[in-house]
């Protein structure tokens, strides 16, 4: 997902959540960034700080946690990390995966048995793990 589109989605989700809970303001939001998607934290942060102006999240603190990407083969059970297979990915593939992380199945396979039937156990993409609001 592209950073601005992403920031936009994050902010709208947070504001909707706050509204649903009749909150006065949003205090804190924690966002997890999966290693596989490789989004640029600085751009997301910049975009969020721009877009939050004039909303009830304008004083909110956005904090980020990076999550390592871990894969597990559904065929043989082997578990591996992105950095174990990074040499299989060129710049173009990394960029493809940045936009649609699931195309990782096109570009890598299980280092042990070669299967492309593997699960991205952790660190796929971006999600919100915590929203703190003030009533």
């Amino acid at each position: 997902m592209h950073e601005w589109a992403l920031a936009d989605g994050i902010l709208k989700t947070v504001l909707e959540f706050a509204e649903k809970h009749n909150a006065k303001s949003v205090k804190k939001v924690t966002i997890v960034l999966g290693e596989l998607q490789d989004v640029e934290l600085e751009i997301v942060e910049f975009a969020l700080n721009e877009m939050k102006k004039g909303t009830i999240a304008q004083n909110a603190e956005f904090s980020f946690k990076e999550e390592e990407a871990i894969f597990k083969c559904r065929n043989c059970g082997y578990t591996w990390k992105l950095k174990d297979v990074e040499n299989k990915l060129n710049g173009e593939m990394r960029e493809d995966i940045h936009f649609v992380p699931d195309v990782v199945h096109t570009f890598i396979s299980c280092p042990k048995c070669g299967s492309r039937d593997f699960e991205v156990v952790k660190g796929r993409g971006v999600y919100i793990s915590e929203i703190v609001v003030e009533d």
Partner: protein
Amino acid sequence: MIDPRVKAIEERTKDVKRIIPVVSGKGGVGKSLVSATLSLILKDMGYKVGLLDLDFHGASAHIILNADISKLPEEEKGVIPPEVEGFKFMSIVFYSEDKATPLRGIEISDALIELMAITRWNTLDFLIIDMPPGMGDQLLDILRFLKRGEFVVVATPSPLTINVVQKLLSLLIEQKMKILGIIENMVRDLSTIKKIAAEKNVEYLGEVKFDPNIDRSIGRAKDILTTNFGRDIKKIAEKISRSGDY
């Protein structure tokens, strides 16, 4: 854990007037050819059109249109779908480099959500969605995220299609989806779908004759429009455009 992409989907399609998923339940009935040709014709009629290929395992629209997929779509606060034949086009093949993309259910859904969350269609009169066969992830995600979709169902006169299409229609009706109507494709002599449309109280949008020459025009968009297939789809496109003048 909250997924921020779901809100982004609404945002990306908010200036799209009409969303038309082209569905069937059955494979090989002409969904892709109908979707691409409808897009070409609606664009020629002066509408702003987008075409989204959601058939990840059997992506076909780029082949029908001979689209250049070597370059990644331009990035600007999201992704701008490239212009192909005068309309906007998005497909997973831009990101899979047109290679095999084996995906399971949750992965299909994730890829779909990702594509829909990043693609900036901006203002469109029509977003045509070329759907995979079946009632799997993509159909369920359309029912979940694009509730205002107006479904076009493609069927053929074959008894093997009829059974599947009846089930799909029942599902769409039960889920209270708007069904624009049924297109009966590859008709040689007898129509069997008119009866099904009447039974289900769904509009019969028209028949498209079996066109033995159509495969020769695949990859040459301009040629498709001058085929018998193109002419049959044109009548249907006119019906669809009129159905929007509420």
